[in-house]
């Protein structure tokens, strides 16, 4: 059998034609390459779609019920319905749980796909041989994670509404704050993972000794100020604390100085941008051998 041939975009033979054909053919990949990479990620995600859906629905249900309603009733029976600076424990903890969920999703999507892509399932090498450029590979991964984060956070937010945990009409902004939080944690993690040459279980360590402590010491379940002073610095460097506080500002109007709100936004944004750009550099260097 013979393979069908595409009509050449430029007709004629000879070098000028060949160069011109190449210039035309690369236009779309140059512009949309990152989206093609995201498309690849979506196809892969489809293979674990069940996990995405089950955790996406199960997490908010279980956590809001256990923390907000379960633990919350304990808190309110001891300290009253407005125990947390005037709001119920459920209202206090829900925006934090939303941000934490985003961080967890980001910690999955920014780690193994990047680690695998270089070596164990070296899809990056295949992409790199196509018109896609290394930076676009990273951009595509970020796009795909944003999409999954958005989906997860919207579902989470709907459950928060159902539980009656969002008093403010501006509450929906917490969705975007959570996406930003996920990226702010995930982008630097991606930078680190992109430098891993030999897998010796670094990602599992990261989850245990970075992700978990951050969740516990970022003002998630109790205000940062309730912790001893010598532990509070963890909150200040934690994207989760900044994300959680920002999320609370929108979800129930947490009172904090305006400058602090600005600091939250800037800190998160800087982490995203630095992590993203730095990873682009690393992958560019690693793929150009």
């Amino acid at each position: 059998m013979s393979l069908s041939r595409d009509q050449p975009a430029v007709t004629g033979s000879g070098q000028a034609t060949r160069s011109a054909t190449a210039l035309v053919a690369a236009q779309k990949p140059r512009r949309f390459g990152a989206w093609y990479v995201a498309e690849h990620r979506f196809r892969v995600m489809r293979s674990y779609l069940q996990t995405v859906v089950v955790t996406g629905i199960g997490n908010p249900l279980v956590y809001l019920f256990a923390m907000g309603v379960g633990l919350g009733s304990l808190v309110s029976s001891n300290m009253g319905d407005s125990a947390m600076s005037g709001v119920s424990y459920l209202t206090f903890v829900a925006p934090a749980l939303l941000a934490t969920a985003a961080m967890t999703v980001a910690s999955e999507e920014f780690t193994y796909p990047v680690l695998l892509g270089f070596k164990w399932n070296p899809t990056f090498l295949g992409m790199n041989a196509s018109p896609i450029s290394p930076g676009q590979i990273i951009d595509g991964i970020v796009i795909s994670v944003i999409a999954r984060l958005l989906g997860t956070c919207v579902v989470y937010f709907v459950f928060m509404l159902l539980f009656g945990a969002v008093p403010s009409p501006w509450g929906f902004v917490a969705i975007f704050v959570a996406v930003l939080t996920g990226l702010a944690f995930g982008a630097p993690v991606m930078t680190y993972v992109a430098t891993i040459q030999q897998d010796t279980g670094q990602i599992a360590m990261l989850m245990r000794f970075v992700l978990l402590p951050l969740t516990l010491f970022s003002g998630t379940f109790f205000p940062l100020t309730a912790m001893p002073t010598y532990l509070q610095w963890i909150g200040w460097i934690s994207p989760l604390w900044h994300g959680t506080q920002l999320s609370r500002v929108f979800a129930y109007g947490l009172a904090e100085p305006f400058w602090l709100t600005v600091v939250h936004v800037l800190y998160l944004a800087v982490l995203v941008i630095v992590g993203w750009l730095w990873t682009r550099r690393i992958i560019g260097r690693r793929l150009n051998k």
Partner: protein
Amino acid sequence: MPEPVIVARDLVKKYKEFPAVGGISFEVAPGESFGLLGPNGAGKSTTMRMVGAVSTRTSGDLSILGLDPNQFGPEIRSQLGVVPQADNLDAELRVRDNLIVYGRYFGLPIRRVRQRADELLEFAQLQDKAKSKVDDLSGGMKRRLTIARALINDPRILLLDEPTTGLDPQARHILWDRLFRLKEQGTTLVLTTHYMDEAEQLCDRLVVVDKGVIMAEGSPASLIRDYSSREVLEVRFGSERNAQVAGELDGVGERVEVLPDRILIYTDNGERELVQVTDRGLQPITSLVRRSSLEDVFLRLTGRSLIE
């Protein structure tokens, strides 16, 4: 000669101070099947990566389809098909999806990619594996899928890095047949190999590379003519005695090479030389007369055999 699709001039690639490619020059004409032959570590793969516009050269000039890869990487890659030394298929996707997703990287419309994927599955004789997982394919099938994937964009130039290394003889022959068809259809092939038979089967012209430099260039036949004799007599006296016997073979054949396991005698007429050997009272354990091959060319040029 039409304008070459690949022009390399004094191409150099250094890692730190180590020159993996030490200044090589070659040209490839459109539709030609061009080979880089040499042992492992000769710099073939590095050269292929530079031609594939994924590795920046240290110095020298390189032009692919009239474009410089330093500026026009995506443009050049849009016209290439690349079959790397190690398959990098996506184990997380099924066979047909591997082709489809790869076609999308070139910005091809999804409908076109689907149609092309089905054609290529047929070409690679993998129709009934379309829904299989990549990990369930045999080595030969994976290789054919990798080649099918490299053809998804209907490339002008197909780069094949050690296309049949690690495959069993039957799988190699199937692959050669597919590559030969592409050649007949006018696709430019550039391949590296350390297999002589592969180079002889597929290459119109080749360069022999060793330690990052080109040792010789020509068609397989002309290289054999220039650097070897018509026939080779191989005699074995046992690994202990080969070197000792070699001293008694003065004047036999045009040239004698002593390898650890056998002695090669280069000549126009192998049978005649065998008679000469036995006339001297030397009784080889085994003897074999064969045509000269590129292996002999390589041995002559470098003093080493290709597969060590």
